[in-house]
């Protein structure tokens, strides 16, 4: 095998991986963007993601329909989000602490309920073969795009538009930037945040469905490996902008695909280091984009991390 083809194979695998791996990042980060734009942080989305993966897989196994799985994952995620939103509006409750509690709770509940579903196999979500024009199997594999990825891409454009052009979008931003102003306008800030956290949970749940029903496409306890948490960091990196979330998700997805891609062309030395690429990238980006002399630009004013 020539070096030239090796590099092309790696690049192609990274592009394909970016598309394949980014979808959960995308859904979780879009959900968290909605939540954080309303002025609340939900760190529990990791737990929601895992529970979404489990409930989607279980539903798909039992009903035979992957879309039913997606729907159940979304509902379960929404329930987690509403729970988080409800608990946080109680007096003297810290949203970060509740988020961590719900992260552990969601994962634990998913492991407990998901034990019987590790063995059976579920029908996967359909993908569209955009690589049909090529004879190369690598190209075909890279361009098999799942429907949920397209939905997520459309959703990020829609959210970007909606934050500027809809009443609901503006109200979420008002609640996130100045609770006093929202109250002065007669809006119930707690309710806005409850719905925003619920919506964020729905999207995180759907992200989980993608994990178990498409890629990697099975249910096990290590399925998320912290992707939900990384997606929260990604929201900060994307400066709470849904379009930037899309780009950042692709970047993280590509970094996540680097390890397997190198392994596939026979680079076996130290590939575990490449598996760590997304985590190193998270750390590096957060360090590079922060500064002791600047406030976080674009951060919603009510967020507990910017207060």
């Amino acid at each position, binding site marked *: 095998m020539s070096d030239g083809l090796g590099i092309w194979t790696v690049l192609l695998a990274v592009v394909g991986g970016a598309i394949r791996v980014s979808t959960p990042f995308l859904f979780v980060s879009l959900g968290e963007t909605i939540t954080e734009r309303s002025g609340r942080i939900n760190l529990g989305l990791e737990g929601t993601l895992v529970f979404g993966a489990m409930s989607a897989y279980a539903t798909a196994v039992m009903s035979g329909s992957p879309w039913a799985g997606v729907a159940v994952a979304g509902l379960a995620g929404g329930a987690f989000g509403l729970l988080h939103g409800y608990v946080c509006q109680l007096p003297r409750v810290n949203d970060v602490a509740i988020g961590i509690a719900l992260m552990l709770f969601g994962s634990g509940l998913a492991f407990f309920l998901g034990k019987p579903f590790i063995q059976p196999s579920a029908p996967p979500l359909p993908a569209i073969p955009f690589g049909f024009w090529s004879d190369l199997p690598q190209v075909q594999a890279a361009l098999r795009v799942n429907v949920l990825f397209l939905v997520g891409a459309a959703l990020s454009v829609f959210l970007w538009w909606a934050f*500027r052009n809809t*009443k609901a979008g503006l109200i979420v931003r008002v609640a996130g*930037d100045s609770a006093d102003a929202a109250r002065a306008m007669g809006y119930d800030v707690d309710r806005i945040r409850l719905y925003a956290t619920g919506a964020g949970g729905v999207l995180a749940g759907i992200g989980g469905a993608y994990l178990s029903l498409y890629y990697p496409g099975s249910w096990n306890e290590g399925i998320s490996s912290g992707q939900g948490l990384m997606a929260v960091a990604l929201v900060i990196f994307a400066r709470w902008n849904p379009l930037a979330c899309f780009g950042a998700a692709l970047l993280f997805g590509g970094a996540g695909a680097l390890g397997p891609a190198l392994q596939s062309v026979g680079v076996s030395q130290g590939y575990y280091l490449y598996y760590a690429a997304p985590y190193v990238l998270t750390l590096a980006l957060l360090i590079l984009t922060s500064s002791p002399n600047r406030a976080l630009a674009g951060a919603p*004013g009510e967020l507990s991390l910017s207060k």
Partner: protein
Amino acid sequence: MVLIPAPPQIPDGAIGVETIGMTKRFGAFTALEDVSMTIAAGGFHALLGENGAGKSTLVKCVMGFYAPTSGHVLVGGREAEITNPKGAQARGLGMVYQHFTLVPSLTGAENLVIARSDAPAVINWASERAALSDFMSGMPFKLNLDRPVAELAAGEKQKLEIVKQLYLKARFLILDEPTSVLTPAEAEEVLGLLRAMTDRGDLTVLMISHKFREVEAFARTLSVLRRGRLVGGGAVGELSRDDMASMMIGERAIRTVAARIGEPDPSNEILRIEGVTARDVSGLREIAIEDLRVRAREIVGIAGVSGNGQKELADVLGGQIRATGGRVIVEGEVYSGKRAESRAHRVRFIPEEPLRNACAPRMSVAENLAFRAFDRRGDDPDKPPTLWLNKGAMGRRAKDLIARFKVKTASSEAPIATLSGGNVQRAVLARELTDPVDLLIVVNPCFGLDFAAVSEIRNRIVAARNAGAAVLLISEDLDEILELSDRIVVMSEGRLVYETPGASAEVGVIGQHMAGHH
């Protein structure tokens, strides 16, 4: 589901408002007692009173923020039950608060549209923009509505707040100290235009103010509150300034500010700022101070409209932000605001909003008073460091300072956040001014304090100067600057643009430079 009655029709012209027997108690404290006041449609009414006299309580009761303990409001001659600000808005009542209620990250246009109760679910910006520019062409102020509010200067924000209320069809407008963030020229412009609207019968204005000059120039009628009661009022012009002042403060001796004794020492330069540049944390505002010197026994007042870089200058001197260039020199050595440096050169820094910036709000008064030397043996800043707190010495020192500086507190062990604003400032001054001081930097020391506290705190500052300290006074209160300063420097858009000796200062010229006409 609560049934919401159809909103009453807002008339086209100005609305009159009357309060009858308004009383508001918070627990045992009576903030407002039996206040009956009439503001005729098309009037321009001023509400005067000291801090804590009940002015804000009264207007908040009218706006539905508070439910009055007893009494009611008539709007346009009819009794109106207003239970929240939204209800007030539906009746044509609007209020511009002292703090901004605009949403910082939204643009002006977004702020206006979302404040409307009938904002559409999907906003068609093309048509909204056309409607807004149509509306703005009839407005007294020209504003850029496409920029995020966070990027606007304080004066522009204030204008936008007023425009917002007019956009929401307010026909009765309450202004809470509207000119505190405006330059004198801007204040004239804004109040003059609002006065013209009342003269045309389009609007009624109720203005809370401290400034007699403004009241005399723009209001037609006035009322004075003292300790929650209505103590007088009438037509502007019938009352002299002395009448108004004595109504506001009652029978109480006010100490005047101590005279400055002795001349600045020209040979003893304490603070020198050379070519300092810095940027604030949002990265939006920059300052560039070419050259600023403060000598011993001299008060240099930095005047300017808020948001022109004073905060950044203070933050550099206090060590909160790093300068990107230049040097700050204190007594011949480079100074960066570190604890050891401020101890060595006897520099004291009193930031604005002392409760937030100079205190740990939940720690006790005694602990807050000990901040400067708690880690030194015997609580003496000149002694070597110690590991253990000397609670006994801390307590004794606190009791002594509380007595000497007349800090009103339940006990030296009470959390400092329970003290009133004036007493927090007294406690901070007690901490910072007991030992000899070479350089004192104070920022807005009297913001939000009442008459008595103000004169006392200004006295302390002048006394420190007379004792030989160099004082840099950064203040948004021009009267304070004029009263205290040996030398006045005007700051505008991050630069020092004008300098004049305090004795021969002309308010008009200073005002022009504050407003950016150099």
